C-alpha cells in the first residue's frame, strides 16, 4: 500500500478511536439528530388546529347555527366564547383568549333565502400572521361549501401533498438542517483539538501531508454522517408518514455529497481558527443558519430579495433541499436532479481544497 494511503488510513483509524473513546461525540452524532427530529416534527407543526374562536350570532337562526357547526366540524376551530356584538369581543382578541371571531349579522337566514347579498364576517387576530393565515385558510375551506348557487370553483388540489400536510415540507428540511449542524460541528472540533492539545506539533514533524490529514479525518465523519442520514430518514419517514417516492440510492448519494460539503466546511473552519470554541460557533453560523433560513426550508426562495436569492444559490443546503424534496415527494431521478448533484460535488471539492490550502504546516 502506498505511503500516502497508509497515512490517510492511519489518521482515519486514529480518529475513529478518538470518536469511540469520547462518548459525547457519539451522543452528539446519533442522539441529537433524533431529538431534533422529534422536536421539529412534533413541536413545530404548521397544521394548527383547535383554534379558539368567539361567535357573535346576531341572527339566532338555524342558518347561523349551521354556519357555526360547519366551522367547528373539522376540529379546526373551537368555540370558547359567545358575545352579542363585535365590540365585546375586542378584549378577547387583545388578551389572546380567542384567535378569531365569527360575526353573523342579523337577518342572515332571511337574506340568504332571498338571495340578497349578505355575509358572515371573520375577524382574525393578525398579530401572529402565520396562525392568522392558517385560520383564514381553514375557515375559507370550511365555509366554501356554504355559498349556494355560486358556480363551482375548480377544485384546488395540492399535487404531491394533497392534504397539504406540513410534515411533507418539514421532514426533508429537518434532515438537511440536522446533517448540516451535526456534521460541521463534529469536524469543526477535530483539527482545532489537535492544535489545542499540542499533538499537531508532533504530527507536522512526520512525513504526513496536509491532504492526508484532512481526508483522513473526513472519512470517519462521513461514515458517521451516513449513519445519521439513515437514522433520521428512516425515523422521519416512519413517524411522520412521509413517503419516499424516489430512489433510495439517489437519496443517499445526494446526502453523501451534502455531507462532504458540510464536513468540509467544518474542517476548513477548524483549520483556519485553530480554536475549538471559535470553530464551533463559526461552523454553526456558516452551516445551520443558512440552511435553515435560505435553503427554501421554511421560507420560499422566490419570495426573497434578489441578494438573498443569490446567496441562496451559493449554498449547498439549497441544492440538497431541492434534491431531498425531489426524491421524497416527487420521485425525481438522476436526470432531473443532476444539476443539484453537480453543484454539491463542486462545492465539496472547493471547500475541501480551501481547507487543505489554508492548513499551514507551521506553528505560529
Amino acid at each position, binding site marked *: 500500500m502506498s*505511503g500516502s494511503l*497508509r*497515512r490517510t*488510513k*492511519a489518521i482515519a*483509524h*486514529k480518529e475513529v*478511536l*478518538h470518536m469511540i*473513546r*469520547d462518548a459525547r461525540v457519539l451522543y452528539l452524532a446519533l442522539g441529537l439528530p433524533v431529538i431534533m427530529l422529534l422536536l421539529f416534527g412534533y413541536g413545530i407543526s404548521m397544521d394548527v388546529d383547535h383554534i379558539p374562536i368567539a361567535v357573535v350570532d346576531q341572527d339566532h337562526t338555524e342558518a347561523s347555527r349551521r354556519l357555526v357547526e360547519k366551522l367547528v366540524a373539522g376540529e379546526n376551530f373551537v368555540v370558547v366564547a359567545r358575545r352579542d356584538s363585535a365590540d365585546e369581543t375586542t378584549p378577547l382578541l387583545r388578551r389572546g383568549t380567542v384567535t378569531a371571531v365569527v360575526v353573523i349579522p342579523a337577518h342572515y337566514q332571511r337574506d340568504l333565502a332571498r338571495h340578497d347579498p349578505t355575509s358572515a364576517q371573520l375577524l382574525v387576530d393578525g398579530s401572529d400572521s402565520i396562525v392568522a393565515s392558517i385560520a383564514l385558510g381553514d375557515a375559507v375551506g370550511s365555509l366554501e361549501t356554504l355559498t349556494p348557487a355560486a358556480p363551482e370553483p375548480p377544485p384546488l388540489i395540492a399535487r404531491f401533498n394533497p392534504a397539504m400536510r406540513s410534515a411533507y415540507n418539514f421532514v426533508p428540511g429537518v434532515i438537511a438542517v440536522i446533517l448540516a449542524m451535526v456534521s460541521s460541528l463534529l469536524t469543526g472540533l477535530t483539527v482545532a483539538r489537535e492544535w489545542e*492539545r*499540542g*499533538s*499537531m*506539533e*508532533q*504530527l*507536522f*514533524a*512526520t*512525513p*504526513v*501531508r496536509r491532504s492526508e490529514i484532512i481526508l483522513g479525518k473526513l472519512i470517519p465523519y462521513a461514515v458517521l454522517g451516513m449513519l445519521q442520514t439513515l437514522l433520521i430518514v428512516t425515523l422521519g419517514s416512519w413517524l411522520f408518514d412521509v413517503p419516499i417516492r424516489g430512489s433510495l440510492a439517489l437519496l443517499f448519494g445526494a446526502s453523501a455529497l451534502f455531507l462532504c460539503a458540510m464536513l468540509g466546511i467544518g474542517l476548513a473552519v477548524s483549520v483556519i481558527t485553530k480554536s475549538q470554541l471559535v470553530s464551533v460557533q463559526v461552523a454553526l453560523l456558516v452551516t445551520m443558519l443558512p440552511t435553515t433560513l435560505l435553503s427554501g426550508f421554511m421560507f420560499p426562495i422566490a419570495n426573497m430579495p434578489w441578494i438573498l436569492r443569490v446567496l441562496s444559490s451559493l449554498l449547498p443546503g439549497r441544492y440538497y433541499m431541492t434534491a431531498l424534496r425531489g426524491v421524497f415527494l416527487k420521485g425525481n431521478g438522476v436526470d432531473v436532479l443532476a444539476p443539484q448533484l453537480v453543484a454539491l460535488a463542486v462545492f465539496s471539492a472547493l471547500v475541501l481544497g480551501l481547507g487543505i490550502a489554508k492548513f499551514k*504546516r*507551521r*506553528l505560529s
Partner: protein
Amino acid sequence: MTSVAIEATALQRRFGDRAAVDGLSLRVEAGEIYGLIGPDGAGKTTTLRILAGLLDAQGSVRLLGRDPFDARSGSREVLGYMPQQYSLYGDLSVAENLAFFREMYGLSRDTFRARRDRLLALTRLAAFRDRRVQTLSGGMYKKLALACALLHEPKVLLLDEPTTGVDPVSRRELWDLLHEFLAEGMAIVIATPYMDEAARCHRAGMLHGGALLVEGAPNELLVAFRHPVFAVRGDRDALEELLARDDEVLAYTPAGARLRIVVREGHERGVLARLEAAGARAEPTTASFEDVFLARMREERSAA
C-alpha cells in the same frame, strides 16, 4: 570522515519586537550530541522548532542536506522530533501511539515489531503497552515520546527538554537509550536545563537572548575556565545571603551539604577572607560545567 548532519546558518526569528533567535548558526556532525542550554526564554524551543522546519525564520537549515521547510525534500524521513509540550495522544494506549507512528513512517511489519519490542524493553514500558497515555506519569510519558521519535531510526534527532520533570533514575535510562543510537551515527541536538546533561554532550552551546554566547566541547570549556571554584561549608542560609550580595562571587550552587562558589579571577583573597570572617571554611575544588555556565550568565548580565 565525518559529515555534517545538521547545519543552521544565521537564523533570525522575531516575535513582535522581540528577537527570539538572533543570528544563530550551528553545525552538528553525525554521531555527535549537541547540548543547547540556557535559561527560560533564551530561545531553545524556538531554535529547535526552526531546525525542525516547524517555525518560519530567516536564514537556512539543512538536515542531511535537506531543507526541512521544503515539503518535498524528504526531511521528515530522516528527522526525529520530541517537543517540549505533551503531544502524544492521551486517549490512545502506548501500543496504539507506537502503531500510529509506524504508519506515519511506513514501516514494514517485521521492522516495526523488532524496533517496537526493543524500544519498549529499553524504556521498560513493555508492561504498560495497553495503558492509556494520559494515565502515565511524567517520566514514563517522556520515555514513550522518545521511543516514538526513535521508531523510524532517524539520522537527526531534536529533543526539547526531554528529561524535565523526570526522576534521576529515568533520566539515566533515557540517556542510555540515546547513547545506543549515537553509537549508530545519529546526530542529536538536545535542549536541556540540566548542566550535568550538557556536560555529557560532545559540544554545548549557551543560548542567551537568542544568540550563542559560548560554544564548545565541555571539557575544553572547563580547561579554559579562569575563575577559581571553592567548596564552602558553613551556615547555609547566612552564607547564601552573604554570597548573593558579593559582587566578586559570580555564582554559587548547593553541592551536597556544601556550597560551590565561583569567584571572579583575582579576587579570591577578599572573598575567602569575608567567608572566614563569617565562620565558613572554603576548599578549592575543580570547576564543573554548571560553574562555567552560571559564571558566564552572570558576566553577561553585568555587561548588559
